[in-house]
């Protein structure tokens, strides 16, 4: 057995450090759940709809599929529960189209049907639009914007691959579309993830963003994707959504699930900073900024952990994930 294989075999499901093999295992579990749930939804709609999508369901079990498959499944379930038979049947037809949702490798895209497939841009916006303000404030990149921005994303990915290959490998196992978006007006938007489009990583950055800042955003969103996978799209806590708490990454109060997500992600960003500082790949100015970031993450994690310790009622997945993050941050804070 090679050293890397031995290391992968010893990795536990909730171990904190990024690991591509573990991420592939989590992704396979999520896809198995998607395949089962999609089969159930299609069978409830019409036994024929299930059989017509048999190739897609087999593909979901076999390997990565496009985030749009998660999106179509979400909208199918919602249409069924809304008694909207026409919409449900239209989605079932879409799922049965040959080649629907098939992906090869990690792609950088923007929100257009040309990049995502017919009808998918509207679906992505709908599912991103949990907060209408956020959805309304975003648009696809123009071709010129996309050419420049995608090149910068590739620079950031190259930095991750060279400086934090474990994280780059995990990202590659969890994410198959980096979706670049632009803001309209002066609204703030850095990036987003949604389990309803699992495998899509939404990202926005301005002209001043550096390669390390973009790589930090990639690390951040990949951590959300992992948490979604750990919980199979469910919550990390049992606290009611209506209960709100101070979050280390927001000026407004958030549900406990968001506080736990934020705290775990902060720990992952600390890991990212520590790894890049060790890498010798950063220029002097970058090095100083990333070191400062690492110190900030120690403080922010402590803020989140304080709220969590007092109020969180964890699910088993949430407890295990957060415990691993706390262990990492405790070791980072040790002299």
């Amino acid at each position, binding site marked *: 057995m090679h050293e890397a294989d031995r290391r992968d075999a010893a990795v536990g499901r909730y171990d904190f450090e990024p690991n591509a093999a573990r991420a592939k295992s989590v992704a396979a579990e999520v896809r198995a759940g998607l395949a089962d*749930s999609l089969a*159930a939804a299609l069978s*409830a709609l019409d036994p024929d709809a299930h059989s017509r999508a048999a190739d897609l369901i087999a593909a979901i079990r076999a390997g990565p599929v496009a985030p749009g498959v998660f999106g179509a499944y979400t909208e199918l379930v919602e249409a069924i529960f809304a008694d909207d038979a026409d919409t449900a049947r239209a989605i079932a037809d879409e799922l049965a189209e040959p080649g629907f949702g098939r992906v090869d490798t990690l792609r950088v895209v923007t929100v257009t049907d040309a990049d995502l497939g017919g009808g998918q841009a509207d679906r992505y916006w709908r599912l991103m639009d949990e907060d209408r303000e*956020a959805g309304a404030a975003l648009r696809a990149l123009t071709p010129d914007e996309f050419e420049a921005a995608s090149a910068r994303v590739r620079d950031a990915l190259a930095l991750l691959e060279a400086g934090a290959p474990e994280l780059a490998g995990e990202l590659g196992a969890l994410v198959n579309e980096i979706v670049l978006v632009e803001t309209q007006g002066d*609204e703030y938007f850095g990036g987003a993830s*949604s389990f309803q489009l699992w495998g899509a990583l939404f990202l926005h950055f301005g002209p001043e963003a550096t390669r390390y800042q973009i790589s930090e955003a990639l690390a951040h969103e990949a951590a959300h994707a992992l948490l979604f996978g750990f919980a199979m799209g469910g919550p990390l806590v049992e606290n009611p959504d209506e209960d709100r708490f101070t979050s280390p990454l*927001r*000026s407004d109060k958030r549900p406990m699930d*968001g506080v736990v997500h934020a705290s775990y992600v902060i720990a992952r960003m600390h890991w990212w900073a520590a790894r890049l500082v060790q890498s010798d790949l950063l220029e002097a100015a970058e090095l100083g900024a990333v070191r400062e970031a690492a110190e900030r993450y120690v403080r922010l994690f402590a803020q989140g952990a304080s709220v969590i310790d007092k109020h969180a009622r964890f699910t088993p997945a949430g407890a295990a994930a957060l415990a691993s993050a706390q262990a990492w941050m405790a070791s980072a804070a040790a002299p």
Partner: protein
Amino acid sequence: MTKRSSKELLNGRDLLGFVRRDGDQVAQRASSAKVTTTKSLADLDKEINAGSRKRRAGPSS
């Protein structure tokens, strides 16, 4: 025998990314499945420096 609706057939099933509310009657998206937003280091700096500046972004971590 009355044909059962698709919704009735799906009620009570465990559905990925959905949680059941009110018994088995309505499936809703799990809260953690909603979007999360991120901040770059620079944006985080701005917010820390700006204190409680209100952001208008999506429901985030």
